[in-house]
């Protein structure tokens, strides 16, 4: 299958927005209000932290709030000058400051960010573990969520790709991003007419073949 036809291409996966397992936006916003606009979205890899933060940004903007979203990658231990300007802008204009991947920062950089975050109109970060800020929302995944996501992308469940949902979910430790990447490879290689597709593990891991 060509990459542009693959239902699990990154752009298609990113178009699927956050789905709450429990509660909903009013619960999250109520908790954010109770925390005086400061808190952390906490969860493991592939559990939807970034998606939830992006959706929160969209929701706040729709409600008339000015929002600055700063995205940090693993290994970014300090803010770039552009990111630093965005943080300063958020602090001086009383805007909402949203920081994805805040636990990548070195302790000193985090303390500097925290000072600015306290001055901003709101301050929400994503992290893998609790402790940076009071927990605003824990993100979790489930086999059912994985099945629903595959359904949205393809109209079928993971079983249609030769992977029982429980097996697929647990083999990736609940990391939905990685589970969907495996299904990308299944589609890329091509589904056999019967039985489980042969997954080319070298294709999945080498990144060499285009």
């Amino acid at each position, binding site marked *: 299958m060509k*990459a542009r036809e693959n239902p699990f291409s990154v752009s298609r996966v990113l178009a699927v927005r956050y789905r709450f397992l429990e509660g909903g936006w009013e619960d999250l916003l109520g908790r954010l209000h109770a925390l005086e606009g400061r808190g952390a979205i906490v969860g493991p890899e592939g559990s939807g932290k970034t998606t939830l933060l992006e959706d929160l940004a969209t929701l706040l903007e729709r409600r008339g709030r000015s929002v600055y979203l700063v995205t940090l990658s693993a290994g970014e231990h300090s803010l770039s000058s552009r990111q630093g300007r965005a943080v300063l802008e958020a602090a001086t204009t009383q805007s909402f400051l949203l920081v994805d991947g805040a636990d990548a920062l070195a302790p000193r950089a985090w303390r500097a960010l925290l000072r600015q975050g306290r001055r901003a109109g709101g301050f929400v970060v994503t992290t893998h573990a609790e402790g940076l800020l009071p927990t605003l929302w824990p993100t979790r995944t489930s086999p059912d969520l994985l099945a629903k996501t595959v359904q949205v992308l393809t109209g079928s469940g993971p079983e249609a790709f030769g992977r029982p949902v429980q097996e697929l979910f647990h083999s990736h430790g609940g990391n939905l991003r990685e589970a969907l990447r495996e299904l990308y490879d299944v589609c890329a290689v091509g589904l056999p007419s019967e039985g489980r597709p042969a997954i080319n593990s070298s294709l999945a891991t080498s990144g060499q073949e285009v």
Partner: protein
Amino acid sequence: MSRLEIATEGGRLTFHPGEELRGTASWSLDAPPTKVELRLFWRTEGKGSQDVGVIETVSFDGAGPEDRREFRLHLPSGPYSFSGKLISLIWALELVAEPGADAGRQDITLSPTGREIVLAAAEK
């Protein structure tokens, strides 16, 4: 509801590198626009994160809420449209109006062979 449409001359969707692409952009918007733009760009699609390259932008001055404009774009020499298992490169035209989030899009193929280049592994 807003409508934004792109029609290439003669309905052609496949072009050679360096060719001129002519067409018509038309729109019917819910509110008078502050800006209407046509963009020629390529994007990647596949397993990795998406890359985008905007090659040319045409602004339609004095655009009304219901309007129609002709355009001409000079296509570059590359990159060619191609597909493999892990990545595809797709050329497209996009018509956007502000304010609003509506857009009209039309994928095209840019290739010296007149067809998308299919990398061997994706042909199976």
